[in-house]
């Protein structure tokens, strides 16, 4: 009977009930969408590093700078027989890269680019190319061909087949320059390689830089979680020349920044839900006042204080449930839609980054049914908490006074 009476009471003034629920609907929806976006951003960060720059874990020269665009060649990583055997045995795939920062010159135009020397056969086994947009063909492994990113093509006015000059400091510090040919313009979908990036087959990179060993060893393991356990073995095999970092460690800084964003979302959601709670409390306090005589009648008929309180709390819970379901409906739908159709921020951010951040300009959401369930529970809890005080006020009415109010 209490639930039936609570439902009928809510329909007594549908407009007021609806407006009371509205702020809760907005708050819950914002929570769902915001959480989905932050989840998507986390996933984007991890996936971009895993599929573009790190793999499951990487090794680089000890003391190699991890901040800024500087890519020194003074220290290299030598992959000895022991490390090679370990990698061949334990890794799903592994490859090496030489990172350097040459200057690309085309006519009167010049621009500092981020070059990645790579092993054509191995690289594709470690890093996926599902989102690559390729105009042209893969460079010949031992020629003078390379690929450039769309931003380099745009800045220098290059197209497939054009030739330009790459100037680079060698491993020994001398200035080297080679004329190279654009085999393809490649958009990888990863800001770290798309922003002023050129991809240079390892033989050509070695000719330019004089480096006889890579700056990075990149390893793909069967599972992300295996990296932590594998790290000590690889570090031991490579010796003190190299430092080894897992995917988790490489993305920790970005994820920590996103944790701050999550806190900020929490604050926004808290404010929205607090406003919603005030709305619910105000509505039910008004209801308790308006329905004083009804409460008195119910008490005269034998309803206990506890059941009167339960009636108001049930009304709050029903408002919370309905509002949460609606909030989850719109928030969940948007979260699902953007998880399937990511928003493309290429134009907005691709040219504004210097390539130090491994992320995709396609920002999708992480659709999580568990978050939807949590959001419904959260909405109900907020509404119940907000209706608690009015329920106490109503249940504390003296029946003798209330019944004749």
């Amino acid at each position, binding site marked *: 009977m209490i639930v039936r009476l609570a439902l009928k009471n809510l329909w007594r003034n549908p407009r007021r009930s609806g407006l009371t629920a509205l702020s809760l609907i907005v708050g819950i929806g914002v929570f769902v969408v915001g959480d989905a976006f932050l989840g998507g951003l986390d996933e984007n960060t991890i996936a971009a590093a895993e599929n573009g720059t790190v793999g499951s874990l990487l090794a680089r020269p000890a003391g190699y700078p991890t901040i800024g665009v500087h890519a020194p060649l003074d220290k290299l990583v030598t992959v000895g027989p022991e490390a090679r055997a370990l990698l061949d045995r334990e890794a799903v795939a592994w490859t090496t890269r030489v990172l350097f920062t040459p200057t690309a010159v085309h006519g009167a135009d010049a621009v500092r680019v981020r070059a990645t020397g790579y092993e054509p056969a191995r690289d594709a086994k470690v890093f996926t190319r599902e989102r690559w947009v390729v105009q042209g063909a893969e460079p010949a492994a031992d020629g003078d061909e390379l690929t450039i990113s769309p931003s380099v093509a745009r800045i220098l006015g290059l197209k497939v087949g054009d030739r330009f000059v790459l100037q680079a400091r060698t491993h020994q510090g001398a200035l080297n320059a080679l004329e190279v040919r654009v085999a393809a313009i490649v958009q990888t979908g990863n800001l770290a390689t798309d922003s002023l990036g050129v991809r240079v087959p390892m033989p050509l990179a070695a000719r330019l830089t004089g480096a006889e060993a890579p700056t990075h060893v990149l390893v793909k393991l069967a599972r992300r979680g295996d990296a932590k356990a594998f790290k000590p073995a690889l570090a031991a095999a490579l010796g003190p020349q190299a430092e080894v970092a897992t995917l988790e460690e490489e993305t920790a800084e970005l994820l920590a920044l996103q944790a701050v964003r999550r806190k900020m979302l929490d604050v926004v959601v808290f404010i929205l839900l607090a406003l919603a709670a005030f709305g619910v409390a105000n509505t039910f306090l008004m209801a308790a006042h308006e329905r004083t005589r009804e409460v008195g009648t119910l008490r005269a008929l*034998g309803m206990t204080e506890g059941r009167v309180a339960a009636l108001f709390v049930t009304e709050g819970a029903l408002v919370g449930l309905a509002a949460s379901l609606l909030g989850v409906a719109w928030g969940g739908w948007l979260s699902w839609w953007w998880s399937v159709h990511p928003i493309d921020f290429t134009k907005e951010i691709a040219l504004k980054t210097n390539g130090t951040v491994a992320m995709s300009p396609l920002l999708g959401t992480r659709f999580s049914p568990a978050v939807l369930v949590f959001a419904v529970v959260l909405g109900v809890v907020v509404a119940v908490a907000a209706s608690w005080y009015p329920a106490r006020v109503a249940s504390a009415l003296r029946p003798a006074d209330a019944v004749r109010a």
Partner: protein
Amino acid sequence: MPICQLTDVTRRYGTGPSRVDALKRVSLTIEPGEFTVLKGPSGSGKTTLLNQIGCLDVPDEGSLSIDGTTVAGLSSKALSRLRAEKIGFIFQSFNLIPVLTAEENVELALDLAGKPGERRAAVLDILKQVGLEGLGHRRPNELSGGQQQRVAVARALVKKPVLVIADEPTANLDSESGEAVLATMRRLNSELGLTFIFSSHDPRVVAHAKRVVTLHDGAIVNDQRTATGA
């Protein structure tokens, strides 16, 4: 055993100079089957006395028992249980729950009394007895004042209470409706032996009474059993 027994009941409101003694050492015994009217001018203590008898309020001094249960010391929950099971209320302003239909209003009393069994049949039966057959689906705002008061009567009676308390039950009714409601209650009193206690200024109500208790300034000044009732 009396249905209701008050012994030296005193009820005060306020403190210090503003203190009002609403009831002053009132003693009253209501026997089963009585049809009693409390009368007296405004402020004489009729409503306060009904609040005591209905266990809506508790005395400052004195004792009260309802159907053998001593009220003093009962918790709020126990008082609620006592009201739910043993006392029916009829109010001047009907006090129906506006969002419930007539049937639901009546059923609510059964629900609160925790009465088991076929509730719907009991509800339809009592609505028929008060002359509201076929109107059970209507909400209070779809009923006349007289019909609303008869729903209130049905709500009070459906749980088969030992005592029905009616506070100015005809005050908001026209003479015809008031007479009909009174006749219904008088008939149920005669046929079922239900015990009624009213407060009223209405001479028609007094004319129906088997017993008339007159209050003045919080004290019983006259307690008279009538020869015929009505």
